[in-house]
């Protein structure tokens, strides 16, 4: 019902338009809000990342606590227990890297879910007509979508990494982690940034190819998971290890091993993997740019 006293009148806008508004942030915020609207997927996707962060943080905390306690007891038995514990659990840095790498896979799942529909849904609904009838450049649109998706990467990879690293920093005796293993901090930040940026680019590029979220999800899983599996099988059966370069997770594993100085895979060539990662990211960016251009202006 409409109140009889209420009359709708058109009021002219008396304000001014900003010279340099942060349009990508507006678009990113809208994308994040839409992504978080459905609570169940968000709960299911963030829970593993939270658990990983908690388990990682508790483990790191316990390692320092046990080590501290045993060394406090002194004597040969204390030293032996500490050494045995280190043999079983590994050192703190190795544990931090393990949990960061584990979080990265949960981040992949979350970013795929939240990112698959970001451009595909715009295409399906024709929402690009609404966006691009505003003074929004295609670069602004691209940035907005990237920032939105990277936020989900930050939630599922950046924050767990931050929690684990903070625990290591604050629970280490005499700030030993900060004094002796500070490089783990920036290396983790670098690894997480490259992971988030590369995965965001690839997910959005694949999302821009189709106009349904389900198709985009299929495409992302096909490109990342199925391709990784197929590349591993092909590389093992044909005994050509270079085929594994088609696998994004493999390249990230090699990159992480190289970055953190853990030579777990002697066959791997870190330079090749870095080039492969760069190709994934640049290829995704080129595809994304081409498709967004077509969404803004049709030739």
């Amino acid at each position, binding site marked *: 019902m*409409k109140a009889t006293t*209420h009359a*709708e*009148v*058109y*009021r*002219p*806008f008396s*304000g001014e*338009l*900003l*010279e340099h*508004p942060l*349009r990508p942030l*507006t*678009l990113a*915020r*809208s994308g994040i*809000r*839409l992504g978080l*609207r*459905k609570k169940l997927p968000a709960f299911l996707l963030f829970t593993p990342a939270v658990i990983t962060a908690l388990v990682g943080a508790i483990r790191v905390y316990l390692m320092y606590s046990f080590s501290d306690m045993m060394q406090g007891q002194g004597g040969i038995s204390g030293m032996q227990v500490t050494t045995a514990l280190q043999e079983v659990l590994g050192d703190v840095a190795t544990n931090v890297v393990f949990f960061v790498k584990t979080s990265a896979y949960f981040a992949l799942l979350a970013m795929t879910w939240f990112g698959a529909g970001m451009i595909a*849904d*715009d295409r399906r*609904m*024709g*929402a690009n*007509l*609404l*966006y*691009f*009838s*505003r*003074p*929004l*450049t295609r670069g602004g649109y691209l940035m907005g979508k990237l920032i939105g998706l990277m936020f989900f990467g930050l939630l599922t990879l950046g924050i767990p990494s931050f929690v684990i690293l903070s625990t290591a920093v604050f629970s280490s005796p005499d700030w030993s982690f900060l004094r002796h293993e500070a490089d783990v901090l920036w290396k983790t930040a670098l690894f997480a940034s490259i992971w988030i940026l590369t995965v965001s680019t690839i997910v959005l590029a694949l999302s821009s190819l189709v106009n349904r979220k389900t198709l985009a999800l299929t495409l992302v899983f096909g490109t990342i998971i199925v391709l990784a599996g197929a590349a591993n099988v092909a590389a093992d059966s044909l005994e050509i290890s270079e085929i594994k370069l088609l696998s994004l997770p493999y390249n990230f594993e090699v990159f992480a091993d190289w970055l953190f100085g853990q030579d777990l895979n002697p066959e791997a060539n870190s330079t090749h993997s870095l080039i492969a990662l760069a190709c994934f990211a640049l290829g995704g960016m080129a595809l994304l740019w081409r498709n967004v251009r077509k969404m*803004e*202006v*049709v*030739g």
Partner: protein
Amino acid sequence: MSESSHDPKILIETSGLGKAYGKVQALNDLSISVPPGAVGLLGPNGAGKTTLLKLLLGLLIPTTGKATIVGQDPRTRHGRLTIREHVGYMPEGDCLLPETTGVELVSMLGRLTGMKAEDAMTRTHEVLDYCQLEEARYRPVTGFSTGMKQRLKLAQALVHDPQILLLDEPTNGLDPKGRRQMLELVADLAQNHGKNVLLCTHLLPDVERTCEHVIVLQNGNVKLADSVAALTQADGDRYRLSVPRGADAFCEALPNAGVILESREQDRCLIRLPGEGQSADVLFQIAHQSGACLESLEPAKSSLEDVFLSAIQAEGEEVSP
């Protein structure tokens, strides 16, 4: 406002504008000047109306020719961005993101245009009120009726108070009540709030109710472009008569005086005088001589529908062998 100077009497101008989709020529050498005010872009489906709007916004690149809107060329990046600041576009399709609410969508698009957050929110509530979406503003657009979606699309086009509104089939899919509401809003914006409206439609009554000028497109060509008043002005030599008594004798006497009886429905006749500028006094003489009673006599006007149909039929005659 735009940096480049342009004739304030011409809002939109195209010169030899053409657009082809592969072998299909959507617009063909279009040269028009759109004056300020409410202008109807009328034509059957596939006439090239939506293509013209997208070309004006820079959403399509023309194959030939150029267009200017508020003095800016949409082919250049700067021109496109300037145009989009000054234009509100209501697309034809159902382009609303389903998970958003009316308030979120309109305020977000306001901010994308460059409004401050608080301005965008205030303005969003104002335009949603104006478009009669008060109660529905916090509901997801998925639950909106077609009429509400159309009004929401109008609201988003209005949020930054643009000087030009490009409305693509705003009454599409609306029931009579919704259509009336939408046309009232469009007419109010054009007549009372100084908005320049380019109303793109295939429905003639929509243009008749809201627009001062009309451009008729067919197969990518302009068939007609003039003010509604000029198109429907009275023909100098045609009259409508009411002859309640002695109509038969009156009609029989008309040819003797050289007057052509175009149509007759009982006591109402449509006649054409034999010569241009001839006085209608001859009709009173015929009535007097035939003993008929002439009750009313008024100059006959063409309806916009007559004009539209004759323009479209003229095209048909050109096309047919």
